[in-house]
């Protein structure tokens, strides 16, 4: 009888015990997957899709741009670089405001710049007219339950949602309105917090950035960033959270190994004589060890087969009402096939390590000791 057949026969012999072992290990697999999925959701968000070589100019002395104001000279300095280097220069109005009891980014830019410089693509409805109309990011539509026709109170004024848009980066959870509407609503002062500079095709972003940074209207007063760099710089809090999630997920995976250790250790404690008899009947120590390791791996595989659907079902249940949003970041847990494969490998490894530790004693004990027990 091979170690594999022996392991299968053993697991089938006492099904209740097998089920209990599998249930115990499945529990931690579910938790490891949930925490891992949360870490992955944050990690995916932090790996912001590239917005090309777009540059932004802002006041570097403010952590939140809402309080800053860029004078028109900054825009003119960017435009002065010419069409060979810069294809479009776009002012962006930026505020973090409570809208209908949610903290959201309210942005405004000239309508002509939305598709190009601001990377917005219409997902549903239509772009807003100048006046009391806005569009919202798909993330915000999901999280807040706002739809076409919803009325948002922005700065004390009712504004109607006419469409939803899709956008990379944090703007996906923003409210956008035409710059003219923002001027009417917020007044003509402090209308530009960020200037977006779209680098011309074929032009070198680094050169444009250096030229802008050296401009007398900008140097020493404002800073030039790649848009991606700036977004990543402001996600420090999320990185802290991400680290905590990784720690939690790692601990849960450690618990898989512990579950494997417990399953093997209890098995050895329950059947010391049977293990010794196996060796007496011609099984080598290596074969008995292989049988025990295979047995544990099978338990882990069974637990994984139960744990993954359970975790997926849990994730689906959590998002029955849409993803959770933390500071406008969507925490949407998904059982991505690649991550499931990684978890499968880590589970197998963890179970192997746990079983190896518990069976190490078997390698040291003699047959006589086993029989005596």
């Amino acid at each position, binding site marked *: 009888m091979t170690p594999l057949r022996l392991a299968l026969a053993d697991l089938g012999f006492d099904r209740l*015990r097998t089920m*209990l*072992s599998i*249930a*115990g290990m*499945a*529990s*931690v697999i*579910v*938790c490891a997957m*949930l*925490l891992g999925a*949360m870490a992955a959701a944050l990690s995916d968000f932090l790996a912001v899709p590239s917005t090309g070589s777009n540059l932004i100019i802002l006041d*570097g*002395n*403010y*952590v*939140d741009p*809402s*309080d800053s104001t860029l004078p028109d000279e900054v825009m003119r300095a960017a435009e002065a670089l010419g069409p060979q280097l810069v294809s479009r220069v776009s002012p962006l109005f930026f*505020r*973090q*405001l*409570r*809208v209908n009891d949610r*903290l959201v980014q309210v942005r405004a830019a000239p309508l002509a710049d939305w598709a190009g410089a601001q990377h917005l693509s219409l997902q549903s409805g239509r772009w807003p007219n100048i006046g009391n109309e806005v569009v919202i990011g798909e993330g915000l539509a999901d999280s807040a339950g706002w739809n076409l026709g919803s009325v948002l*109170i*922005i*700065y*004390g004024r009712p504004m109607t949602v006419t469409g939803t848009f899709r956008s990379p980066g944090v703007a996906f959870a923003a409210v956008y309105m035409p710059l003219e509407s923002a001027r009417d609503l917020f*007044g003509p002062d*402090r209308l530009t917090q960020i200037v977006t500079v779209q680098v011309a095709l074929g032009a070198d972003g680094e050169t444009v950035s250096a030229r802008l940074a050296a401009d007398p209207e900008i140097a020493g007063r404002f800073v030039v960033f790649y848009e991606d760099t700036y977004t990543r*710089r*402001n996600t*420090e*809090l999320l990185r*802290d*959270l991400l*680290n*905590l999630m990784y*720690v*939690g997920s790692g*601990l*849960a995976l*450690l*618990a898989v190994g*512990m*579950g494997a*250790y*417990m399953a093997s*250790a*209890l098995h050895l*404690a*329950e059947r010391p004589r049977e293990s010794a008899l196996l060796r007496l009947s011609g099984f080598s120590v290596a074969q008995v060890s292989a049988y025990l390791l295979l047995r544990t791996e099978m338990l882990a595989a069974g637990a994984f087969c139960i744990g993954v659907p359970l975790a997926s079902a849990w994730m689906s249940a*959590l998002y029955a009402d849409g993803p*959770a*949003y*933390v500071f406008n970041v969507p*925490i949407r847990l998904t059982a991505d096939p690649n991550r499931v494969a990684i978890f499968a490998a880590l589970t197998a490894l963890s179970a192997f390590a746990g079983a190896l530790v*518990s069976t190490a004693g078997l390698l040291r004990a003699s047959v006589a000791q086993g029989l005596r027990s």
Partner: protein
Amino acid sequence: MRSAMRLGLQALLQHPWLLIVLAINTALPLMCALLIGGYQTDMLSRYDTVNPSLLVIQESGSMGEFYGSRIPSATVELLRARGYAHPIPEIHNVTGATPASAVLLRGIDPARYQEIETFRLLYGRPLNANDPPRATMIGSQLARNRDAVLGGPIQIRGREFIVVGVFETGTVSDFEAWVSLRDAQDLLGWDDAVSIFVVPAGGSVKPGDELPGGLSAVERGASGRNLTREWRPLFDLLGSIAGSLGIWSALALSATLGRLTWLRRRDLGVMRVVGYEPAALAIHVCAQGLAVAALATLLAFAGASAIGAASPLQTSGVQVRMVIEARTVAFVLACALGIGLAGSVVPAVWLARMPLSGLVRAEWA
């Protein structure tokens, strides 16, 4: 009873590694509960400090007590017309080149800020109207983070200020640098603009009222409360994961104790023979479950303290640390007790209901 408990613990100690692994397994949900509770405690105590006796007039919808509100000083005339004789102006801003180097700046009226803010002075003296420019009093957390000392300099937005006092409020203000309103306006280039006006509640303006010029009134501390709301979905999510981990830990404990009990069924049968009641055997198992839970609790506190100390959540000049308070401790102890008892009850009931003949016969089955 006591001897039954002692025998139970002795039986458990015969499998020391199993005990340790079981305890670590049980410690995981408890540690999660401690971390979640600890971070939430610090966040709520620092940020959720609404003072309903004061109103803040700010840009509508903004987080004026942190950033994002900039209103003209002429607003004071509007408020006087509404019956407020002495509105107190403040500036709130987050300054710094990066989130890591950010400082929460508060511009105050040196002659009147003590009317609306209470604090405990740790070192030095309060800021007063006669102070020269570039004097600041800073919160204890900011002093600690920046290694700032009394009489020494601290950089705020690239300028050097002299620390005249270090205060503590137990709120987010402990991360702030307070400077005179004039210094703050100069520093930010705001001319005579301010962030907010503070007025007493109970007057003609009510919380939620919209005022001309895009202004609105909120309770003092509303910005902090709104910020804590943004965190709630995360804590709810983590709480549900920790809860599930707890349930499964109890199941794993139950399965393991059940198998240990099965292993020792003949010994337990012998205990019944020598006069132990079925209830004593149940206590025997419960003692094992509670011992695992007790060890798990110790491990959870040690683990959570280590992780909490190493992993403060920080952004834009503020930190959220893990703070363990009595309520969290009580909750975690209750969870530990719950897991210990829930993990013991099935094997204990099974054992108590098992006839003596079944226990003894099983050895030869």
